[in-house]
């Protein structure tokens, strides 16, 4: 019986990008279904009744919600190829810690950078740079966060890269100037087919953000 894999997603979502990258890395054929978050589809509401959010991974009819949970599910269900998580329990814990850090600490400030003004926006920018520096310090001189192989933390973070351009414009700062190693890492990741296929062009995101602001009622 062939696997049926559906991904309910929204093209600019850095969370959805994680799942796309994970599926591509494992060469899993999936049906990508673009969602309108301003007019949520019956399937989205049925498959994620608790949060009503994307991405939702539907495997043979059964939904898995939350992007990092999906990444781990994909790794556990299709164990071929490079595992996303190391086998050593301590290394695994470190990877999960940083994935959690990205969710808790990196995402929030980005919303202030493109969505807020004045002091709030400045505070968001400052916070974002601080968090990126922590990540960069964790990366060190490694090729990827996990070392030599592309894995969980790389997948957790890479979707933010296509948002860097618009964030820099809104916040009036240069990420490369602040975190050159992180930019070098991102460019290495972009060379991977799975990543190049899964991330939209930066300029698409940059054009999209003013439209998004109008839609959600921010000027």
């Amino acid at each position, binding site marked *: 019986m062939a696997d049926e894999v559906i991904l309910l997603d929204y093209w600019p979502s850095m969370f959805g990008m994680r799942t796309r990258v994970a599926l591509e890395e494992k060469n899993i054929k999936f049906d990508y279904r673009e969602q309108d978050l301003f007019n949520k589809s019956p399937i989205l509401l049925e498959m994620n009744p608790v949060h009503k959010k994307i991405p939702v991974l539907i495997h043979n009819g059964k939904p898995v919600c939350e992007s990092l949970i999906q990444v781990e*599910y994909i790794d556990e269900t299709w164990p071929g190829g490079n595992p996303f998580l190391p086998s050593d329990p301590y290394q695994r*814990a*470190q990877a999960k810690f940083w994935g959690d850090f990205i969710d808790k600490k990196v995402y929030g400030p980005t919303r202030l950078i493109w969505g807020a003004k004045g002091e709030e926006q400045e505070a968001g920018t400052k916070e974002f740079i601080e968090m990126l520096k922590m990540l960069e310090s964790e990366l060190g001189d490694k090729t990827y966060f996990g070392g030599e192989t592309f894995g969980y933390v790389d997948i957790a973070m890479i979707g933010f890269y296509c948002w860097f351009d618009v964030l820099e414009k809104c916040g009036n700062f240069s990420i490369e100037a602040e975190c050159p190693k992180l930019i070098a890492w991102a460019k290495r990741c972009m060379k991977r087919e799975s990543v190049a296929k899964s991330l939209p062009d930066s300029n698409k995101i940059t054009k999209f953000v003013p439209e998004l602001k109008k839609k959600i009622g921010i000027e």
Partner: protein
Amino acid sequence: MAERSEEVKLLGMWASPFSRRVEIALTLKGVPYEFSEQDITNKSPLLLQSNPVHKMIPVLLHNGKPISESLVILEYIDDTWKNNPILPQDPYDRAIARFWARFVDEQVYVTAMKVVGKVGVERDAAVEATRDLLKLMEKELVGKDFLGGESLGFVDIVATLVAFWLMRTEEVVGVKVVPVEMFPEIHRWVKNLLDVDVIKKCIPPEDEHLDYIRARMESLKLKSV
């Protein structure tokens, strides 16, 4: 006395649900550990050194190597000590367990904190919002003894936050956030939990705990004035 090759130390706090859940997991697996009570108002050098990113408890130190974030710690414990598994084996079941654990921490806990920290209309709204979230947990318990199924699992350990923190605040706050008429399954589940030795051993003693919650509530109200 723990062997030098298996030194397990927990930097925790007696009244924290996040710290207690780690103790439940270690106790369930029969892992001997040293508990080090931390003063979070005056953080120790060891805590700051072991969790420089968040500077929070709990932190598990295994042979000197730190692991932070309680859900990460729980999974680490399960990966390291294979007896009495906490997470299910099947990848789909694991994904569901991880989903509900996050739900408890990111939704229920955040909303329930407002019940304690707010007053008046804001508190009422928080109670309503908490109940809406708990209705989802209630549904999950139908036909099951535990959230993990027949026996205590990952989600149960995480959700002790609901059973022994959220529900205990009812006494202090004077509001039945989780009335038995509305949540018979949750009440039945709490009774099931209290029948488990490891749980009984690891939850904070009720009287002291209530005193602590009372004191915290007072300090939160004072801050918001």
